[in-house]
């Protein structure tokens, strides 16, 4: 039998589906608003005892509208690409042709629905309803439409499944993971102001505006639902709690009909809108909450401790999402503070300090506070950031405006003023705040691309050709020819990505308005169009890249050992890699001893820099051909650890299955020439991208002891001479080893894995080992 929660979710899914079906012919914005009305407040959950704000949800809809949903995660056919197509069953081939594991927009969870149906007796009529619902979505869901219309060359060239396994070097998602919306506009105008702006519009489609107004009604209804819930809880609460609940209810009732007047109402409106529109990135919080925060304290509406209590309550709502199992084990909710281009820098700075204090007080993994800074910014912010890092908070991550702003001008093709509104999202993908839309829905592993080049496109594990056939090894009689083949392989892949992007955007435009996000994205309201219909000012795409530094190190080893010192032939080198170094320990040592990125070594770094320039310029050059304003690489994620597990040995000396380097960091442990050497290497990246993450692991001594000033000087100098970003994990020597042995004693040990923050003890062993292997700077 199914339990009450499952039944509740199922009912919501059935209602949602019915409404969608009834409105198949309606304008996407209207259909979406009607569907949202079925989802909210039906998915809303009451406040918890310690909440000062309402806005909890019942997680994981079976069917619903989300920006990014993780679904179908346990279906092997969608995960494992370990055999040739001829050996894949007809059913699995079918599943692969219609399903994805990360999807956005109309999300339906095939796997969960079928599992639910399997729990019901065969004669239960609800079973038939579930199957009918699945059949409907299999025909109509945007994901299925996307999958069915996907370029065959893309599928056959590289991507059987939505994962990077042993046989894949590239794959794709159908999701929206990097929205950035204008919460400042929301709080300045309030729901009535937004409504008036929409009603005043003349351009575009009136149906879009009608849908937008209906969606705002849903938000207001959710406020009223929570208000009623709070008032009803107040009736049975103790006097103190009752007063809190009534204050919350009053705020909710107010924001349903007028713009927020104080910090409490501002945070409450932000949060309700946030949950209804499914954002995970909160943007420039210090700008949109700064004035409320400062004014309330100045006017005596709140004492500072009361204001801080409100912030802590908001932080808990954010961090509990993860604890409650929303999304995956690692989450990436960003709060951006500091930086150029704020309309209220003094008030924003005060909020920024309060935000960092809150993170320090709670020591939670979320939200991920991100500090933007520039030369001349109030130094107290940077000092506070270092205090947090020294205390083991892991955040804030540090973004240098003086490098990012010029880069974004060029990379995104925007004005200086707009570039000042760059914001890192999620794992670190950069958007132009509430003006651009782009998801890193293309995945490439450069190291696997090199492996294909070394095998003329043949993948021995899956016994099939994948990617471009670049010719036999004998052709590569110079290093340049080999390198050129790798470039062709990458260029070919980027071409396919470009075509895929175009198709993905077409499907979104035809099916979904992302109406609540559109209302807060320039210039959707003015143009009367949804984001994907041409509403967003800048439409772009990104590629999540992996293994850049491993590939550079591998090329360095090949260049040196094969072409310069002629210590082995290319054929021998490939045979050694195919044997995973078994019987070739000496040769492996030679490869390990070749120059490596991360040591300020001119040989290794020059190869890295050239590869970095090629991959970044190549993808950027494809933007126009796929109708985009920008198309950029990002290099952020710990996926390299996961993806490495299926990958053959490589010429940097890495054994089969070992992790790849994370983000733009050197391969774990390959950097052994001191902190300054590492920082110098990291600066050599080619700055034309949507976010490169540089992880750095340092000991607590360096941040809190007598050497703190020296460490600060190193970091400052790095940033003043071209350093773009740093993400610092501060540990005691031995912490990680001890945490692996006695995880129960280290529940709060936070670490950085690429753009992600994680509790160390919750990570897979392979990821733990990668972090352990990283150089600890003392």
């Amino acid at each position, binding site marked *: 039998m199914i339990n009450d929660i499952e039944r509740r979710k199922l009912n919501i899914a059935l209602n949602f589906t019915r409404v969608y079906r009834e409105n198949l012919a309606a304008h996407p914005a209207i259909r979406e608003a009607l569907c949202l009305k079925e989802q909210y407040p039906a998915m809303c959950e009451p406040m918890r005892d310690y909440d000062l704000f309402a806005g909890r949800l019942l997680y994981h809809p079976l069917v619903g509208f989300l920006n990014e949903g993780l679904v179908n995660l346990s279906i092997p056919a969608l995960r494992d690409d370990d055999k040739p197509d001829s050996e894949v069953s007809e059913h699995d081939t079918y599943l692969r042709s219609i399903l994805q594991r990360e999807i956005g927009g109309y999300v339906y969870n095939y796997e969960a629905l079928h599992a639910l149906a399997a729990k019901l007796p065969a004669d239960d009529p609800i079973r038939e309803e579930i199957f009918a619902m699945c059949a409907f979505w299999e025909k109509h869901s945007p994901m299925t439409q996307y999958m069915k219309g996907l370029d065959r060359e893309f599928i056959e060239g590289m991507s059987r499944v939505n994962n990077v396994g042993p046989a894949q070097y590239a794959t794709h998602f159908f999701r929206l993971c990097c929205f950035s919306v204008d919460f400042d506009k929301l709080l300045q105008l309030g729901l009535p102001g937004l409504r008036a702006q929409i009603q005043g519009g003349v351009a575009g489609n009136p149906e879009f505006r009608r849908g937008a107004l209906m969606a705002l009604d849903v938000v207001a209804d959710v406020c009223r639902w929570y208000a009623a819930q709070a008032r009803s809880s107040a009736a049975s609460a103790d006097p103190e709690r009752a007063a809190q609940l009534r204050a919350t209810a009053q705020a909710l009732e107010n924001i349903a009909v007028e713009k927020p007047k104080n910090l409490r109402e501002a945070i409450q409106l932000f949060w309700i809108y946030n949950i209804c529109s499914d954002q995970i990135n909160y943007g420039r919080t210090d700008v949109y909450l700064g004035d409320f925060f400062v004014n309330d304290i100045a006017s005596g509406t709140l004492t500072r401790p009361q204001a801080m209590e409100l912030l802590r309550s908001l932080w808990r709502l954010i961090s509990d999402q993860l604890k409650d199992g929303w999304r995956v084990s690692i989450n990436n909710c960003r709060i951006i503070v500091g930086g150029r281009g704020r309309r209220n820098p003094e008030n924003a700075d005060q909020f920024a300090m309060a935000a960092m204090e809150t993170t320090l007080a709670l020591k939670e993994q979320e939200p991920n506070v991100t500090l933007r800074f520039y030369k001349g910014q109030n130094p107290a912010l940077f000092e506070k950031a270092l205090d947090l890092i020294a205390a083991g908070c892991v955040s804030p991550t540090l973004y240098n405006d003086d490098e990012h702003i010029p880069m974004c001008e060029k990379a995104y093709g925007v004005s200086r003023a707009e570039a000042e509104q760059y914001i890192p999202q999620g794992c670190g993908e950069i958007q132009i705040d509430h003006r651009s839309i782009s998801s890193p829905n293309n995945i490439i592993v450069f190291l696997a691309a090199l492996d294909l080049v070394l095998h003329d496109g043949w993948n021995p594990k899956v016994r099939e050709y994948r990617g471009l056939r670049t010719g036999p090894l004998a052709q590569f009689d110079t290093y340049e020819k080999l390198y050129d083949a790798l470039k062709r392989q990458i260029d070919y892949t980027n071409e396919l990505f470009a075509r895929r992007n175009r198709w993905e955007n077409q499907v979104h435009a035809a099916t979904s308005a992302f109406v609540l996000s559109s209302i807060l994205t320039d210039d959707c309201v003015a143009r009367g169009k949804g984001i994907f219909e041409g509403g967003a000012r800048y439409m772009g795409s990104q590629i999540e890249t992996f293994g850049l530094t491993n590939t550079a190190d591998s090329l360095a080893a090949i260049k040196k050992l094969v072409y310069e010192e002629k210590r082995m032939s290319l054929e021998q080198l490939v045979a050694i890699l195919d044997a995973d170094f078994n019987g070739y320990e000496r040769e492996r040592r030679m490869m390990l001893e070749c120059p490596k990125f991360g040591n300020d070594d001119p040989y290794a770094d020059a190869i890295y820099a050239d590869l970095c320039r090629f991959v970044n310029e190549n993808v950027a050059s494809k933007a126009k051909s796929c109708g985009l304003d920008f198309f950029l690489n990002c290099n952020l994620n710990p996926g390299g650890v996961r993806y490495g597990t299926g990958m053959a040995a490589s010429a940097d000396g890495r054994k089969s299955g070992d992790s790849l380097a994370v983000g733009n960091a050197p391969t774990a442990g390959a950097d052994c020439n001191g902190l300054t*050497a590492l920082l110098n290497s990291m600066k050599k990246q080619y700055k034309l991208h949507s976010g490169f993450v540089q992880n750095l692991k340092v000991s607590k001594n360096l941040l809190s002891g007598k050497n703190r000033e020296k460490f600060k000087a190193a970091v400052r*100098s790095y940033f003043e001479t071209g350093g773009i970003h740093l993400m610092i994990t501060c540990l005691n020597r031995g912490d990680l080893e001890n945490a692996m042995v006695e995880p129960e004693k280290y529940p709060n040990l936070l670490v950085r894995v690429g753009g992600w923050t994680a509790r160390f003890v919750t990570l897979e062993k392979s990821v733990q080992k990668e972090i352990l292997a990283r150089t600890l*700077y003392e």
Partner: protein
Amino acid sequence: MKGLILELQRFSVNDGPGIRTTVFLKGCPLRCLWCHNPESMSPVPEISYNAEKCRACGNCAREQPHCHRMEDGRHVFDRAACDANAPLPFCLGGALVRLGRWRESRDILEEVLKDKAFYEASGGGLTLSGGEPILQFEFTLELLRAAKAQGLHCCLDTSGFADFEKYAQVLPFVDLFLYDVKETDPERHRAYTGVSNARILENLRLLDARGAKTILRCPIIPTLNDRPDHFAGIARVANSLKNVVQIDLMPFHPWGRSKAHYVGRAYALDHLGAVTDETADAWVKGFRALTDVPVFH
């Protein structure tokens, strides 16, 4: 010209002010019992052998049977027969490593200059250490002169055991001496380091008279020189000089032990453990009553 370099350490934060690159030169005239860099004593290249890394593959014995052999699956190393300048045999575990490389001073300087921005941001620079850098006097002089010409702040970490004439020659290129005062009692100094401290203290006095800025570096070794009379002696030295800007107490740590074993040296203080922070704090506190010169550990 070439110098025998043990190691070049970037982001060095304990050898002078700011962020520095420390160049460790190989070879030292002293034989301090507590030496934390015993692999820097010998003025020629050496082979370091770390038994913990040895995987007993036997390859070294096949390639260089005259100095490596296997006995009952255990590696035996005949150092006397080993030519440390010959190519190393392939070592599966990476247990065998050559220490000391002859390198041109201009190449060293080029590498040092890579971190110039970091020195400027932190008030750091180049530190020459060892070993005893003055032992490779010509090289040291050339490197210091060239570094100074590039505007680098230069520290010389020295035992003080050399002809004063040599100090007089490097003096114009050294901004700050890190000058060891290991033991103020002459007899004990000889017993602990193998040499007398008379010349060392005299050189210090002469340098001070010429205005050389100095940090006194004082290794404090429990049971050997953690004595009130030695502490008073250090303070007396510091108080008698005009240009001592700081006293660094360097509490004993046993990290030199394994490094001594790797190069086949006995380590006299096998029984001693690291000094705790509390003890070192107490030493510093005691010193403050003896001198106005700032004291740290």
